[in-house]
């Protein structure tokens, strides 16, 4: 940024501060790239407008960002407007997550297909479907809870480090979150299938294997759709609740 009033060293610090400010705003997930760009323009205009010889460039930037409003409040104000865009972006990352783990599934399990018994009798056993579904959901929920604990921890860790960007900060980014929401149920199915492949030897008859194989097919199609849907319904219900509690404008 051309700013003839400040020495280069200070300008570098200010650029780092603006970078951090942008990162924190992006991590809230409510604003599009363009909206962040527009707010950055505002921040810089405000910063350049504060004329005081007593203040350093950093202090002027702090005042400017304070005037613009704190990051959480900014993100909150943008949420109702960017709702549709927000969901479009979430959906994009979710599809990416689905495709990613689907590809992983193919890579891991294509060689294992050779283990399948030819000519088994297929029939539907709802009990087996439920037991596999519950196992997968259990694994998924365990991972989701793990992530829910890990993300705030990573956020606080990346803040504590001050100027240096922590590699953990990637976990606080929206793209990671939404890829993970979709990827995790698939991973759960994958883990279940691994266990299933290992325990192949315990099937005594082709019929028993057939029952298990069909149940596995059904759940592996269902879970990756059902689990993220569940999370999103709960998340949007919580979001609506928090929006109505501080409704303004």
């Amino acid at each position, binding site marked *: 940024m*051309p700013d003839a009033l400040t020495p280069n060293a200070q300008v570098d610090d200010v650029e780092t501060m603006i970078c951090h400010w942008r990162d924190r705003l992006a991590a809230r997930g409510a604003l599009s790239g363009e*909206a962040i*760009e527009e707010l950055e*323009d*505002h921040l810089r205009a*405000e910063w350049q407008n504060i004329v005081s010889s007593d203040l350093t460039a950093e202090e002027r930037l702090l005042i400017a960002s304070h005037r613009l*409003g704190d990051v959480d409040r900014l993100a909150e*104000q*943008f949420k109702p*407007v960017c709702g549709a865009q927000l969901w479009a972006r979430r959906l994009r990352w979710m599809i990416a997550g689905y495709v990613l783990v689907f590809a992983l599934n193919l890579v891991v399990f294509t060689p294992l297909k050779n283990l399948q018994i030819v000519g088994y009798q297929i029939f539907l056993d709802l009990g087996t479907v439920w037991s596999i579904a519950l196992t997968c959901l259990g694994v998924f929920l365990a991972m989701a809870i793990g992530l829910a604990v890990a993300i705030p921890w990573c956020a606080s860790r990346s803040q504590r480090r001050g100027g240096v960007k922590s590699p953990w900060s990637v976990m606080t980014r929206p793209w990671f979150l939404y890829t993970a929401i979709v990827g995790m149920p698939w991973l759960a199915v994958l883990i279940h299938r691994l266990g299933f492949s290992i325990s192949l030897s315990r099937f005594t008859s082709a019929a028993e294997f057939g029952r298990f194989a069909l149940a596995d097919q059904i759940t592996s199609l269902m879970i990756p759709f059902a689990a993220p849907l569940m999370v999103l319904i709960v998340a949007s219900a919580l979001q609506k609740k928090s929006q109505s509690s501080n409704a303004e404008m």
Partner: protein
Amino acid sequence: MALQRMQGFAVASKELVAASTKPIILAILSRGESYGYAIIQEVRQRSGGELDWTDGMLYPVLHRLERDGLVKARWGKSETGRKRKYYRLSSQGGRALRVEKTQWLNVHNTLADLWGIKPCPTP
């Protein structure tokens, strides 16, 4: 004036600020193309600081007006060469502004009549 501010007499309430945001933005843009920071500065200057807009509040409103087709936006360059988003009034926005003007002047003139102040001519 400082005393008035402390007692909350002169500064517009949150509800009034929220309600007046749309006509004020449309009126400013009817005078020509502008951008977020300049709009806020103009509001501060014209209201003598009585309309205290939080800076961040303006942009969601501008984006909503853009989505509703009342303003049109384009990306241009600022004087320092950085990207800057400029807004201007659309023809639909012009019509919305005329409706707003009538409504606000009606409220104003009712109060002016009650308080014995000279009313403003309605468009």
